[in-house]
């Protein structure tokens, strides 16, 4: 305790914070199109079912190289989406139940396969898939001051996870800006998109590939629980704050960043203030995102509970006066 309320140590905190923020922003931006298409739970399903993809990729190749892991997880993600569609359409099963069936079977398979991997004395851990290992991204010979960061050696020190996540944010931004028009039409009116000659189904799968990619890029550092939270919460919050899609996308990115920075600082600083050890940052970021959403539900300028109440009272007064 050095008296400061907010604890921040460049060596221990900078990279975890960056990783969390990049993961949150990437997922938050993509989440807009899931929330609008009522596919929020697809993120949930995919992030559960990448587990067997990761393990199978690992069992086949015996390496943990990012490319292999990515391929395995992306394949599992796509398989999930295809299977959910199949079960839904061919089996005439309700969408929610179809998702539940597919992802829980995938997850169970993953847990079982991890046991097989563990038999070979290899450390693959379901826990880190769930809640991540942000805390391990420590920069041991970090400079003491912020000005010390402005050197080339800083770039060399950036861990792979952070670089991958940064890349994911860039890719997500590029994807959304290139396909903004298509995504918008597909989000609001897939039938119109088809009649206009866009391939709405193709768009759907492309979006799902990005969601799977974001999940994979994030899982190692931040865990799938933050992925699920960030795919839904920032977009939902932004949706309550604005009626325009472009504004919603921008706002959701900001909210994702705010909740991850806020969540991270809360995870390290609040326990420290009571003399305790830091808690799980990914969980704390999710809670922060939920808190911001709750705030938006209550106090959003047009769609909030308070403004709705005020509007009704005003209307009641106006009617009475008339």
């Amino acid at each position, binding site marked *: 305790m050095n008296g400061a309320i907010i604890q921040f140590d460049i060596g221990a905190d900078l990279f975890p914070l960056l990783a969390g923020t990049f993961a949150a922003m990437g997922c938050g931006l993509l989440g807009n199109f899931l*929330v609008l298409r*009522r596919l*929020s*739970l697809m*993120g*949930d399903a995919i992030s*559960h079912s990448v587990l067997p993809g990761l393990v199978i990729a690992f069992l086949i190749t015996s390496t943990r190289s990012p490319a292999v892991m990515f391929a395995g997880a992306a394949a599992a993600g796509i398989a999930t989406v295809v299977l959910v569609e199949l079960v839904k359409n*061919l*089996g005439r*099963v*309700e969408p*929610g*139940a*179809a*998702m*539940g*069936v597919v992802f*829980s*079977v995938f*997850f*169970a*398979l993953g*847990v*079982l396969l*991890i*046991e097989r991997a*563990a*038999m070979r004395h290899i450390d693959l*851990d*379901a*826990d*880190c898939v*769930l809640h991540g290992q942000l805390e391990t991204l420590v920069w041991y010979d970090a400079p003491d001051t912020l000005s010390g960061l402005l050197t080339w050696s800083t770039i060399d020190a950036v861990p792979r996870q952070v670089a991958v996540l940064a890349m994911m944010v860039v890719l997500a931004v590029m994807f959304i800006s290139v396909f903004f028009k298509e995504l918008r039409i597909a989000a609001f009116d897939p039938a119109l998109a088809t009649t206009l000659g866009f391939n709405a189904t193709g768009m759907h799968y492309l979006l799902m590939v990005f969601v799977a990619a974001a999940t994979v890029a994030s899982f190692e550092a931040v*865990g799938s*629980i*933050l992925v*699920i*939270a960030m795919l*839904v*919460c920032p977009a*939902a919050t932004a*949706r*309550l704050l604005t009626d325009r899609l472009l504004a919603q996308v921008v706002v959701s990115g900001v909210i994702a960043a705010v909740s991850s920075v806020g969540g991270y600082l809360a*995870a390290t600083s609040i*326990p420290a203030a009571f003399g*305790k*050890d*830091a*808690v*799980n940052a*990914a*969980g*704390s970021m*999710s*809670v922060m*995102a*939920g808190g911001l*959403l709750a705030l938006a*539900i209550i106090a959003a300028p047009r*769609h909030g509970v308070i403004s709705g109440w005020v509007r009704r009272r005003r209307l009641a007064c106006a009617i009475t006066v008339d």
Partner: protein
Amino acid sequence: MLPGISLGIGVQLEPSQLEQLRSSALATAGDRLPTLEQIIETVTLRGGYNTNLVIAGTTLLGLAAGIIGVFALLRKRSLMTDALSHATLPGITIAFLTATALGFDGRSLPVLLLGATVSGVAGVLCIHAILRFSRLTEDAAIGIVLSVFFGAGIVGLSYIQANANTSSAGLNRFIYGQAATMRAGDVAIMGSIAGVSVVTTVLLLKEFALVCFNDAFAKVDGWPVGAIDLVMMGLVVLVTVAGLQAVGLILVVAMLIIPPVAARFWTERLWLLVVLAGVIGAASGYFGSVVSALLPRKPAGSVIVLTSGSIFAISFICAPARGVIATAIRRLRLRLRIAGDHLLERAHELHTSVLPASVVDELAQRRGWSRWLRTLVIWSLRRAGMVGSMTSNGLEVLRAGMARGARVSRNHALWKQYLISYADIAPSHVDWSVDQVEHVLSDALIAELEAELTAQGIAIPAVGSAGR
């Protein structure tokens, strides 16, 4: 090593629990495959007290979850149970911390499950609040509650691991479940929950069915829909919380969702659906725990889910009522019948009993038949005795085929007349819709049509020479 999944942040078992494990088949099985004797022993419930406890517990849990899951499925709440189970985690950690702070044993199961229930219910209420007070859709509300509550639970777990003075004593087992740690008391709880679910379902089946299929009507008819719904939801909470310890909060939802969805493929009747779902759930629970008792390092929860998943896959593909194969065959039959009808109708229209190949080609092209379908159509007509063989002159249409062609053609005319006279559809527009319907008009409907049209003095096509 532990029978459950190896948890990164070490689960420490008490010595008594370890002893229990050692005495069970799980630990003795070592790394070898079980012998036939061991298999028979375990399957017939002679594999030792602890093994039997686990088998009994998971079987009862599967039964209860399968039955209750039916109503969750019919109420379209499958994924709400997912949010519910994830939302139990913060309650577990808070209960642990509170109990420890008050000087009790934080690991006591009733205390933890009470916490789980409270926060699970709070999660469901949050979903309802989000739906009520914002314009967000249900999927978003479920995703929000699921991730935020689970995040809070993870924060709580990490706090306990880092700071609590007592050992965290495997709170992680609620995430992945550890069926092997089940004790007699837990099995008694599973048994009573299964009993309560069965009894309630039997007593309230009619009420449940009413609310599931038409809640608006139930409300208008004066039924206490809210209370009935509450009972259904309460049972879901009960089963979820009971399943936490055995299969963990991620997979307990599978026990609620998969058996009903699998059973749905076999039947259209509610009581049968409930029975089947219960049986599938119980069978998966039984099989899952038997396998995990026989093989080392096979966590029961996963095996249970994979078992019910396999039952689902079989049902999805093979079930006679709604399975993929059955549906495909039904569709193909209808398609063949319609195509065959078109062919015979053409023969009737041309007043020829030998259809030249060029006519068949032209028809196939106009109707968009693939070469494959064309061959199949002629094959199925020949099997039904409607047509003879394809000669150099063309396809020979037999007597029965000509009769069918005449009938289809007449149905077409009747329905067309009806649509023009009664449905006010422009004559230029009727043909397309008639084309769809002419093949499926039943004899009773035809008779009705004839009577109706005759009564109105509308000319109806005469029964052809080869008519019915």
